[in-house]
């Protein structure tokens, strides 16, 4: 084994983006991607995905159900930089422009088994009221250059000028089943 290369451990994640609660919005879809450290590398599965558009359920829950599967395997030599799943939700605004409705990130659970995670979602806010209006009008809301920044600490202090408003939104990620094993 030693001759074959560095020993690695594998992290198998499978689960699904279950549903979301965005009471104000409808017809949303979501993207997921993983952010991980330098010692990590995906070995199988998709690290990025984009879901179907879903409509709100007709009942009181008004849940947006995607049940969008996630299945990816990572290998790593170092727990540092444990993968995080980054979700971003998009949907049409009043004028039909595709705008971002929320970003959120959560670490892949550390222990094997079924885990259910609720991720609070947020979007960056415009820097000024005028910009807020124009962005609404033009359908170009402020968004992150890369959704992966929500999983990173670096550079976030630059967002001091901008407020992040947490939406009353909940996103279920379940179940992230992971298997850890170390060959040798």
């Amino acid at each position, binding site marked *: *084994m*030693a*001759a*074959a290369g*560095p*020993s*690695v*451990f594998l992290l198998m994640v499978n689960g699904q983006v279950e549903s979301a609660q965005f009471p104000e919005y409808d017809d949303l879809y979501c993207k997921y991607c993983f952010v991980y450290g*330098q*010692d*990590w*590398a995906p070995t199988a599965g998709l690290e990025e995905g984009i879901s179907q558009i879903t409509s709100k359920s007709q009942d009181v829950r008004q849940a947006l159900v995607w049940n969008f599967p996630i299945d990816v395997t990572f290998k*790593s*030599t*170092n727990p*540092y930089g444990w993968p995080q799943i980054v979700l971003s939700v998009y949907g049409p605004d009043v004028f039909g422009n595709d705008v971002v409705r929320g970003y959120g990130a959560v670490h892949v659970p550390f222990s094997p088994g079924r885990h259910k995670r609720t991720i609070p979602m947020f979007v*960056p806010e*415009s*820097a*000024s009221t*005028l*910009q807020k209006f*124009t*962005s609404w009008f*033009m359908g*170009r809301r*402020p*968004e*992150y*250059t*890369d959704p*992966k*920044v929500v999983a990173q600490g*670096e*550079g*976030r*202090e*630059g*967002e001091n*000028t*901008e407020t992040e408003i947490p939406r009353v939104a909940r996103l279920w990620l379940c179940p992230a089943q992971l298997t850890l094993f*170390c*060959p*040798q």
Partner: protein
Amino acid sequence: MVSEKPHLGSQREPMEDDPDPDTRPLSMTTRRGPRSLPPIPSASRTGFAEFSMRERMREKLQAARSKAESALLQETPTPRPRRLQSPSKKELETEFGTEPGREVQRTQQEDDSQSYSRVKFRDSVRKIRSKPPVPPGFPSAEEAYNFFTFNFDPEPEESAEKPKARNRDGTNQEEEEGEEEEPPVQEGVNKMDEEELLNDKDAEDFLLGLDHAAGDLVAVGPADYKGVHARLQEKEILFVPSRLTVPAYKKLPENVQPRYLEDEGLYIGARPEVPRLTQNTVENRLLVQDPGRKWFGDDGRILALPNPTKPFPSRPPVLAQERDMKVELETLYKKAVRYVHRSKHMIGSGDSPGNFQLDIDISGLIFTHHPCFSREHVLAAKLAQLYDQYLARRQRSKATFLTDKLQALRNAVQTGLDPAKTHITQKAIKEYKSEIRQTRKLRDAEQEKDRILLKTIIKVWKEMKSLREFQRFTNTPLKLVLRKEKVDQKADEEAYEAEIQAEISELLEEHLEEYEQKMEEYRTAYQQWKAWKKAQRAKKKKKKQAVEEHLDEEAEEPYLGEDPVKPVPPEPTDRTAVEQQVRERAAQGRKKPGEPTLVPELSLAGSVTPNDQCPRAEVLRREDVKRRSVYVKVIFNEKEVSRTNSRPLGADFRVHFGQIFNLQIVNWPESLTLQVYETVGHSGTTLLAEVFLPVPETTTLTGRAPIEEVEFSSNQHVTLDHEGVGSGVPFSFEADGSNQLVLMTSGKVSNSVAWAVGENGIPLIPPLSQQNLGFRSALKRADAISSIGTSGLTDMKKLAKWAAESKLDPNDPNNAPLMQLISVATSGESYVPDFFRLEQLQQEFNFVSDEELNRSKRFRLLHLRSQEVPEFRNYKQIPAYDREIMEKVFQDYEKRLRDRNVIETKDHIDTHRAIVAKYLQQVRESVVNRFLIAKHHFLLTDLIVEEEVPNISSEGSGILGLSLFKLAEQKRPLRPRRKGRKKVTAQNLSDGDIKLLVNIIRAYDIPVRKPAASKFQQPSRSSRTFSEKHAASPATHSPSPSADYPVGQVLVRPFVEVSFQRTICHTTTAEGPNPSWNEELELPFRAPHGDYSTTSLQSVKDDVFINIFDEVLYDVLEDDRERGSGIHTRIERHWLGCVKIPFSTIYFQARIDGTFKIDIPPVLLGYSKERNVITERGFDSVRSLSEGSYITLFITIEPQLVPGESVREKFDSQEDEKLLQATEKFQAECALKFPNRQCLTTVIDITGKTVFVTRYLKPLNPAQELLNACPNNPQATAELLARYVSLIPFLPDTVSFAGICDLWSTSDQFLDLLAGDEEEHAVLLCNYFLSLGKKAWLVMGNAIPEGQTAYVLTREQSHYLIWNPCSGHFYGQFDTFCPLKSVGCLIGPDNIWFNIQRYDSPLRINFDVTKPKLWKSFFSRSLPYPGLSSVQPEELIYQRTDKAAAAELQDRIEKILKEKIMDWRPRHLTRWNRYCTSTLRHFLPLLENSQGNVEDDHRAELLKQLGDYRFSGFPLHMPYSELKPLIEAVYSTGVHNIDVPNVEFALAVYIHPYPKNVLSVWIYVASLIRNR
């Protein structure tokens, strides 16, 4: 009062000295004076009158008494008697020995009762006295009556006392009274003050009440006399202990010798200091008092604690007194309850039934033997078992522990032998030694076991391998890897040797001891023998005499015992023999020194041979295995409760169930059994084995229960007709059937049984009462581990064990810390250390020592990576184990660290440049550190994409303005323009994300082929160009200048090849000298170390080479007859020229769009320029200067990268504050008008300070050598200076300094560093021109491809010239091919002029700075020039460059380049044509001198000399900075790509040294093909 009564009575009772025995019964009954009747001396004489008198008297007394009582109650509500009691008692004790005389009267019985009664009495007396106001001296009526009616006893005292003690109750009282009367003072001394006072009062009372004279009192007191008898009696009672020393035998039991523990080596603490006399007294007293001798120790002394002070305060036991009884300590009465016996299988009605749950997790099953095992499986199981054993042993590491112990023991002996601190007795040392012996033996045994185990593992593995080889298939994926752990040979050998030496010396000592012993024996034996001999001799003598005397005595003669043999002295031990022995043993049991430690690692990495490659029997076996399936029944209390699914048996004989059964139970489980069943095919199932599981402890709960493996085995006999070995059947590995093995089906069930946890976290366990407590507790007592838990066993335990084994004296203070540690560790109590630590938990978290951590390669790698050390910044997948990290990973880094101060001349060839490179490196590092913080600083825009604030007026981003117009734009305009792209921050990029797009549009004036071949060469069929004959494309637009050029022939077939980072792309081939390609090439970009951060991208030094080649087709057909049937041509490409664009330029410009001059070598054999094209162009006077070929390019990076922002940092300055304000104002004004034009007022110097820019411009002398070159021609001098400046290597600041900070170095710094970017070049050139007396300015503007740059503008007589300082070229103002495209400002030595003209192109502006309408000057009338001093030096000093060094460098470069070319041609032979090389070498200096205008002569000469060769080659010219650019340049020409078999190469290098170590390098590369 009432409660006191019996007490008093009882106290009185034993009064000894009662003088009148008659009164005794009375006193017993009456008890107390004031209450009782007066004593009747003789009852018979009592008359009626007397009675009535008495009656009356009694009444009065009664009244008085009650009054007195009430008064008393008022007076003394507190328990006064108690207070009085204790002092008197004490005094009595103290008086005991000293006043024997008094003691007779007042024995210990005199206590509170007496004094109390006295007080009572006195009080009552007082009351009585105050009541009848009888005048003193006159008796009352009663008294009178009494006086006359009583029958008086004859004693005079009686009569005298009578009035005062009317109520006397007995003689006892009377006597006491008398006693009191007599010595009131004496009593007062002994009693407390209060009592004294009372006594005084009493005395007064008596005096007052009775009016007695003092003399009367003395007279009536009884004589203070004690009889001899009484005194003797008293002496008997008293005991005075002797002060003499008690002999030891008295203190010890009979026939016991005193034992001194100290001498036996036990620690005895120091005894407290007690005077000898006191000790003796106490001893004597104890001996008399308590004959049991329990107070004496073994040594005959009184037992004493070393320190009588108790370390902890302790409360004395609470005395069981009713008053002190605390409520909580009171015993409560509880009614007895009948014990309800509950059956352990029944749940009482009180408990909620059936809520208990046992979770049985059956995770899987592994067969360690199964009938279907093949032979290999058997071996594999064995191997796995051995490996497990090995792992377990390694974890326990008994050998290491024993080695450590041995070491510790040896140390102990060493310290013990040291006389300085020899508290360890000889005995202990002896014990240690025996211990050492034992431990050593154990250690050796352990080591040998380890070794044997390892050997067995290897043996089994070898067997397995050979079996696999033999059967030619593999059944198991098992693979054993033996990893060698290198050991330090020397240290190991030393340790080995030391160990052996230690062992030898110990053995020798042992032997010596034995020898001594034997010797002793021998000596005694010898003595005996000698004595016997003597006796014998004496006897013989005697015998002789005796023989003569009595012969019959002879019979007695024979000695009773046999003759003592003369003892043989024992042989001393031989050292060499011992050594031999030890070494032999060591060689056997231990690994050899320096031999690497073998660490076996078992993995399942092997591959199993697929079925179709196996023999039939094996296939059958595998199929049989497939048919089998296994399930497990769970039997609870002998009833099946559930069973697992039936799972097929895997090829590896593992069955995975992974099922958890929740048993809802009501009873405490009696038994828990798993039954393993096997099903073969569809036939019946067989019970393989039963596994009994222990009922879990109440502490094992679901989730925390570990998975345990329980072994099972079955005794079934199975014989199979395939490869499977069967069960219970003998089989053998040997071919001859020997060594038979019989294996039974066996395996392990991994399972865990635990109690479930309810929803509210309460474990669902039946109550404890149901458990068989007795059994469990007994179990716990027997097994410490089960009661403590294995986790409690740490090294401390071992230590404690060791301490116990090595018999450390636990009382010795020297061992106290150790003992405390052990006790703390074992009992789990914390202790207070006698030191203070700031980070007290740090030690606990340090799982390894710091040194170990630093030694770890992995940690080091991680650390370096987090520090962002360039080599490791983007290191991916740091291996998980230290041993997987190769040592070479650090080599580069360590080398760099080492070389930081060492000048390495290998890469840099000449030392000066090496020094400069080092210096630059160091400056760079410091600057990098400075900007490290700024690097991680992101702007909001880096992270968030947001539309800017709408602004109609602004041109680019006005959303509302322009974007509305955009809606009206055509979808597909006729003239499409490039659209701006989204910028991408370089933070989430990775390899392959970035591409370099090179759009090659067209080229102008490519050199065309000369028809020289026909002129000089022998016409040969094979060398005729293919195109000459077959190409038919007409080049009409290029009229042929040469007569013998055939019309319609292709002049040149150029194509462009772009090479970047060794990736090469090329366009299609176009035709003619003005080709148009219009092609886009895409080249991938890789950042160094995969780091795509801005800093890293900035420092990319790679260049994009755009090479133009001519494609030449040669007909290689040897035979003309074949021409009809096939075409055989060889394509050759001839390099025509190149354009080199640094990546950094592209990165900062984002896009490069324009026409560039192609850098064509001065000599291009076989090609010539068509000069007639040039005549059409611009200005006549500069026409010839700007001749050349041009190419139009568009280069960009996809996606567009955001170049790093310049460092947002304010630098300090030494400039005047006013001036700085003015510069800010000036810049703001300029930016307002023309935001795109560059305006420069202040720059940052190399020390990081802001400097006003004009300070850099000052006339500076060029080297005299250059001025002398052509003294008559100022233009030529200027050109030479420009050439000199351009020969200084170009190095952008962004490359050398991270972050965009444009540092300006002064000209002398620039010449010292020999590297700089446009500003430095321009400043130096401008300064030279100024010193030549020219009018010169620095032009700040935009140029292609550099972007924002600095050029130099000079004013000649009638026109302006624009000089490119980096290339040395100059252009007229109206030259269309001038790379300078816009002018922002001009900087002179004393002013700055900003361009406020409408246009900024040099073609369209006026350079007359005196016109304020066109140029806005910084210093004007309002702000006059203050006369700023220059930062430049007074003059530049030039050293002549060492010619010899240059020559040496030249040779080295040539050698290296030749090697490189050979490296690039790994599959071909590279031949060097020495003749041609030497020719070229001679030719190169000419080129330098004439700067490339010798083409024709050279060609002629070359052709003359190399007539037989077809020659293609060209000289390259470049400034010398380091070797790498040279190599790159040679590589980019592609000369080495020729793979004609008989090709030869020539390479010549010439270095022309200029002053100040500026070197001009010429490289001539050529390929030669012999014409045959």
